[in-house]
């Protein structure tokens, strides 16, 4: 059952990429993604909250001499991320329209990426986790490089890979270190066993650094976000749906499921558990300020992502139930909002021919539906109550307050700045000051009075039906999770293995 969640996309990818003719690429790819989504939904429907331990567990010994097992399991955290992954892959494939060149390869690699990320969420064995963790990098690299926008896509892809690899290869040392030093000398890679018997605090300190670096780069946590700017600028929008929507979450998920339970007391020269939340808060502020400074819409969203991921990390390292559950909630929420934002921004860029937000204005009269949808997503992104982001951010800050009021107060800065950059973006794009409006649609008359030359030409096309349909599931989820976040948190009392601070 769980094997299918990663194997179906991989098989589909091989079919699309190698076996089938080009014209079948999209239907078969879409069918594969839909089958995976149905499987994930089935797992969610049959999921039993309150059950202790993994569900739908699969266990096959793999390399006995090193007690490496093919061990998969689903619990109340991974369930939602697997679902998110499956849903966003469908969206990404649908979004990969005619503008994507060599679409077969693109869809195949998106599916491979889905398989790799699903494996990361499902693995219950540290080494298996690492295998998937590294494997997801390969399709991501090819996607960024071969389908990247701009002439520096190659450099952006290489930068991304090298950044990530520095972390993840050091994490390999940490994986081996866990095997050698933890588990009471049991020499195992089994996550649940390793969590029961962590190594001595000094060893934990070293391992925490090695693992933490890998995960922090992936999230990305300030100040390890150097790859993000180039990569997000280069990534095509359909890729960004899963790249931004899910891949960063693999890092946050790994922090919650590996860093925290396996190394609960990483104290030698200092306490890492006290350092990371400070970095998270710095990231919240840094991301927000950088977002305010951006003119490129894509980069604005990218930096806002850094800010939002800061909340997630802050919640995880608040070391209490509210903070950590809020973080999981926020992983899902952010995974819903960011793809929607990137899609919208991408469509606007296609219609206006530029990604520079200062070169356009007064779009709302020309594309009212798009403007309306964009409004909803903007409000969700800045954390308006009744939309999904509010509950998650509130919980993480509540958790952070119990941990350290100062950090919570500093984190609130991000909440204050989010409306600044989001509403400025929205206002600037959609409206214009009185008297500066562009001529109404269809009127080609008075150009002289307006700085129209600087303003990008606007094709007067509103959202197409297909585009809107793509966003509807995301919009529905924004509303649903905003009204009823308990839908997600109720499953979170079923964990594969307990966290240091137990959840009830």
């Amino acid at each position, binding site marked *: 059952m769980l094997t299918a969640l990663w194997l179906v996309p991989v098989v589909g990818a091989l079919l699309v990429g190698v076996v089938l003719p080009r014209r079948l690429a999209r239907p078969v790819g879409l069918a594969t993604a839909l089958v995976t989504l149905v499987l994930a939904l089935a797992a969610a429907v049959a999921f039993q909250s309150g059950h202790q331990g993994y569900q739908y567990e699969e266990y096959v010994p793999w390399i006995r001499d090193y007690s490496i097992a093919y061990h998969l399991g689903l619990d109340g955290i991974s369930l939602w991320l697997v679902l998110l992954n499956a849903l966003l892959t469908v969206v990404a494939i649908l979004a990969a329209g005619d503008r994507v060149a060599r679409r077969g390869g693109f869809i195949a690699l998106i599916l491979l990426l889905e398989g790799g990320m699903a494996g990361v969420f499902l693995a219950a064995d540290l080494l298996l986790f690492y295998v998937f963790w590294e494997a997801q990098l390969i399709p991501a690299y090819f996607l960024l490089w071969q389908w990247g926008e701009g002439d520096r896509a190659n450099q952006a892809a290489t930068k991304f890979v090298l950044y990530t690899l520095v972390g993840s290869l*050091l994490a390999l040392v940490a994986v081996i270190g866990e095997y050698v030093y933890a588990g009471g000398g049991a020499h195992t890679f089994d996550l649940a066993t390793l969590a029961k018997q962590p190594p001595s605090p000094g060893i934990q300190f070293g391992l925490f650094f090695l693992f933490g670096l890998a995960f922090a780069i992936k999230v990305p946590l300030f100040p390890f976000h150097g790859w993000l700017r180039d990569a997000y600028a280069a990534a095509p929008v359909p890729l960004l749906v899963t790249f931004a929507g899910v891949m960063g979450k693999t890092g946050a998920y790994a922090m919650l499921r590996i860093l925290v339970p396996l190394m609960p007391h990483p104290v030698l020269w200092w306490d890492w558990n006290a350092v990371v939340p400070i970095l998270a808060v710095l990231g919240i502020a840094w991301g927000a300020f950088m977002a305010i400074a951006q003119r490129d819409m894509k980069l604005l969203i990218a930096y806002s992502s850094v800010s939002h991921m800061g909340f997630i990390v802050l919640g995880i390292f608040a070391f209490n139930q509210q903070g950590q559950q809020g973080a999981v909630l926020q992983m899902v929420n952010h995974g819903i909002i960011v793809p929607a934002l990137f899609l919208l921004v991408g469509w606007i860029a296609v219609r206006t021919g530029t990604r520079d937000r200062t070169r356009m204005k007064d779009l709302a009269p020309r594309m009212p539906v798009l403007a309306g949808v964009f409004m909803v997503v903007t409000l969700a992104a800045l954390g308006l109550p009744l939309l999904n982001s509010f509950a998650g951010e509130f919980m993480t800050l509540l958790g952070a307050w119990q941990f350290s009021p100062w950090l919570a107060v500093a984190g609130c800065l991000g909440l204050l700045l989010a409306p600044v950059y989001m509403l400025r973006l929205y206002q600037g794009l959609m409206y214009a000051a009185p008297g500066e409006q562009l001529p109404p649609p269809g009127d080609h008359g008075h150009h002289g009075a307006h700085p129209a030359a600087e303003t990008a030409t606007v094709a007067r096309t509103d959202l197409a039906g297909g585009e809107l349909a793509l966003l509807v599931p995301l919009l529905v989820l924004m509303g649903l999770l905003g009204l009823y976040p308990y839908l997600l948190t109720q499953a979170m009392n079923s964990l594969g293995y307990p966290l240091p601070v137990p959840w009830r």
Partner: protein
Amino acid sequence: MIATFLAVTPTVSYTFGQAGSDLWQVAPITAVTATLLVAMVVDLLLPPRRRGSAVAVISVVGLVVALALAGLRWSQGGGHSAYSGFATGDSFAIYFEVLFSVLGILTVIVSHAYVRRRDFLESEFHVLTLAAVIGMMVLGAATSLVTVFLGLETLSIALYVACGFARRDTMSQEAAAKYLLVGGFASAFVLFGMALVYGASGTTLLPEIARRIGPDQASNPLLLIGVVLMGVGFAFKISGAPFHQWTPDVYQGAPLPVTAFMSVGTKAAAFAMILRVFDYALPGVGGEWQALLAFVAAASMIVGNLMAIAQTSVKRLLAYSGVAQGGYMLVGVLAGGNSGISAVLFYLFAYLFMNFGAFAILTVLVTPDGERDRLEDLDGLGFRHRWLGLLMTVFMLSLAGFPPLVGFFGKLFLFTAGVSSGWTWLVVIAVLTSVLSVAYYLRVVVHVYTPLAEVPEVDRPRGPMVAVTVSAVLAVALGIVPFVIQGAGVMGAGPLIAGR
């Protein structure tokens, strides 16, 4: 002590039964030697036009027989020492006999097409390959310093000739001369070291040396100089830095199948030799040779990976990558014990498939006027020939150590052994330099998928295609079921740590 050793030979009456039993212990070597002799005779008897293919077929058949014999002997649980303790048929030896048989088969298949295209003498080429395979197998089976040197020279002399096989190509001639000089130099080091170790221990038999040299001998200058000299010679043979300077020139100049063959074969044979002599015979002075090899390992990883980044020839790039890969494998040698030695054995098999495969792809691109081994020559390969492009990507990703390919598990086992036995600093160097390595392995992939305006015609000889495909399939399959070779590696490492 010398007297006892000398006394052994004359008193044993060497019967046919004994000869048969000894030959059976080294059955795969026997088979390859017989094949070599048959091939030489056939070469003389047949008309010139048909010689090449006939010898190629005979070589493949002989190597397959050797492989089958090795498999049979493996299934019987390995053998014991033969030739009065000078050689052995234990599972360590068989492991290498399997490896070298596979390598020999792949090499003959690849070189058949290559030699035709470049219009070389074919049968001589295969005969040299067989001779080198014999030398390599002897190194795996050697349990005496004398036999070790015998194998080393058989292997080296065959390769000196093979390197200069492109007679009208000055690069090839340069490679042969360089390899001969440096190789001779290294052999002299090894031989001198062996002489000193023999002087210190009074025997050339490795098990006997292991018994006689204890930690109390660690201050014996004779022994220490001997160990250092042997270590330097071995480092030359595995092209470990700072003794690697010959590698890129020789790899670049030698004909491609020879490069492919020796990049894997010489390295594997040299590692068999290091494991036998250092890990098995000289654990008593472990601290001494470990210090030397740790330095070589760190230097190889750093120098190899840094230099590879700057290369424009794929052959040179792979040569430097081989230097670095040798550094990784030394981590396993240093770790020792079952986990360390079996990790080295596993890695050698992994290395066989991924490195040979990468070179074999280059042989597909060979034209009658020469080789095409610049990085730009790969441009567009992924578009004009999707399959080859995909396979090259697989090899490069595997060499870079990406899961779930076999190279990843090779590194995992090596590094686990390293951390377990306290070589964490070396593993950290290995890991950090691997990041550098990804930069140049990916550069190859980048060239493979760089679009090209005009698509040149490639015809694809069947032989190399088969070899490449087999290598790639194994590189992927062994990543999914690594325990097959890993288990074999553990068994192969058994004889070296038994009784310890």
